[in-house]
């Protein structure tokens, strides 16, 4: 996982709430056995019509949004299936952060474990971002701050441990493996065995 400390990018906006992980990446792309190359499947059925042609009204098909690393989406982004292919696809496409008023729990967990930053903002800021696609935002991951074009900075909530792992570019398995003595003691001393 690459370290993510700062990010400066224009936004691309999907003004729809409850975007589920089936829409982020449809199930038929889940027969893969790797994490790579899923960007092409990202939002597949929203991006392409059934003949495979780009849908002109979908934000990601607007040439002006190419290279944008911050996605702004409606409330409750990433609901539904636990598929980690959703953050894998977003990252492979080039996104590094998603901004919403709320994320589904599993999607949020999966994102943080892969270096995709879920940023929760207040309703007013969110409404402004939804109404102003393409604005440039600055994110300082170390201080959990999102800076708006007018210079106003908003502190967003993030788990301290997840932030540490993101900024150091380390995964969490190493930390868990260091707990092996405590795990062995737990297994030996618990009052009942599964």
């Amino acid at each position: 996982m690459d370290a993510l400390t700062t990010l400066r990018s224009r936004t691309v906006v999907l003004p729809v709430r409850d975007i589920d992980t089936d829409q982020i990446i449809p199930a038929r792309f889940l027969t893969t056995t790797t994490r790579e190359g899923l960007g092409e499947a990202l939002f597949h059925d929203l991006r392409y019509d059934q003949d495979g042609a780009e849908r002109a009204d979908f934000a990601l098909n607007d040439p002006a949004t190419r290279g944008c690393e911050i996605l702004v989406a409606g409330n409750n982004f990433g609901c539904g299936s636990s598929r980690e292919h959703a953050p894998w696809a977003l990252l492979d496409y080039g996104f590094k952060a998603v901004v919403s008023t709320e994320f589904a729990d599993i999607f949020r967990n999966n994102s943080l474990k892969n270096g995709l930053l879920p940023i929760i903002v207040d309703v007013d800021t969110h409404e402004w971002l939804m109404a102003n696609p393409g604005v440039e935002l600055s994110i300082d991951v170390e201080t959990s701050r999102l800076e708006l074009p007018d210079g106003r900075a908003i502190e967003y909530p993030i788990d301290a441990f997840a932030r540490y792992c993101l900024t150091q570019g380390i995964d969490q398995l190493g930390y868990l493996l260091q707990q092996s003595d405590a795990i062995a003691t737990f297994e030996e001393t618990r009052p009942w065995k599964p």
Partner: protein
Amino acid sequence: MSDATTLFEKVWTEHVVVPETAETPAVIYIDLHLIHEVTTPQAFSLLRERGLAVRRPDLTLATMDHSTPTTPVASFRDLAVVGESAANQIRQMEDNCRDFGIDLYGFGSEHRGIVHVIGPELGASQPGKTIVCGDSHTSTHGAFGALAFGIGTTEVGHVLATQCLLQRKPKSLAVNVSGRLAAGVTAKDVILAIIGEIGVDGGTGHVIEYRGDAIRALDMESRMTICNMSIEAGARAGLIGPDDTTIDYLARRPRVPQGDAWESAVRRWRSLCSDDDAEFDRTVSIDASALQPMVTFGTNPGMVVGVNDPVPDASDASFRKALDYMQVTPGKPMSENPVDVVFVGSCTNGRLSDLQQAAGILEGRKVADGVRMLVVPGSQQIKRQAEELGLHRIFADAGAEWRESGCSMCLGMNGDTVPSGQLSVSTSNRNFEGRQGIGARTVLASPATAAASAVTGRVTDPRKLT
């Protein structure tokens, strides 16, 4: 502040290996890890890259369900997996389980089935356990008073390697369901009504405990239907305190403790309940006696309405987009909509009692002309039990397809899909855009409503056919 605790807190506390701090999440021990072919290949690859073993293969239960075909065959050797990548994924699952010493209920196993159906069926899902799986419907196992939740593939790797997860403690939400269900109203209708009430993000960050006399009156399969869809309300998990119904269901199943160990397990299980004065972070109450059969009208499980009630209206863009996709008119009931496909199955409603519910409607009747109906048992065991009861003949005589077990048309990644533009009445759990196939329009309903809709060719209140 009293010392009274909720069932969730009791199970959580018992599994804390390292307590959480401001800087680090808790290390939580996992008693049962369910795995399937779709969300594990990348986790096993990570183990191979780092030279790690599976810490507790004995606490890992593996099957194949998502990309497996359900076309009827004389022998499992005839099962033809749809697509080379799915076939490769299935081969990798077999290789990974063999190489890491995990028993796999694979093709040819009489115990193969949907992971959330076989865990309970084998008696592996037990009160007080922590249960995880790379699948959001892991909440199903909460019906036994277990803390059961879905995880991503990175976390699957964590559990394989350490049998533990890093977790922050969620909040608690009590959903009190009181009153007696009217005839023809089922657990599916209850959970759809609950999701409609609290919304698809109403449970985010919370573990739900379903309580009240209406929940106590439900059998285990109905309780599993309720807990299964906790994730559709955004909840981390959903659980129900164990009681005689739970213990009677588990008795004599292959993976429960035997002999004296059974007696001591039952004593422990009976102590697993929320204390009378335990405090929940939030409480919601539902009157079950007022419910009618429920159906969804939009593109998430919270967009739900009584089958005979008018579809509501709203002006916001997301709501309008959903109605346009579904080709549904506000103000008119769903019962006016013609049906193309009916799917009975899935981890939500693919158990024996669900099939009996559907068969009860179909017996002596025919599936309407032009409607395709698939009945997909949740496991090979359920298939066998249904055939012993002659249910397969009722389905076949009515003109429905009787299939092998699997996830099938719930998510359409095994070749079982709904054609674009067609309307499907489905007993599964998600009516998301494209979930059952590109352009498919899904109406979620109970098995009884699904079967009644197959008979009339329109979305139908099952009470009109009994």
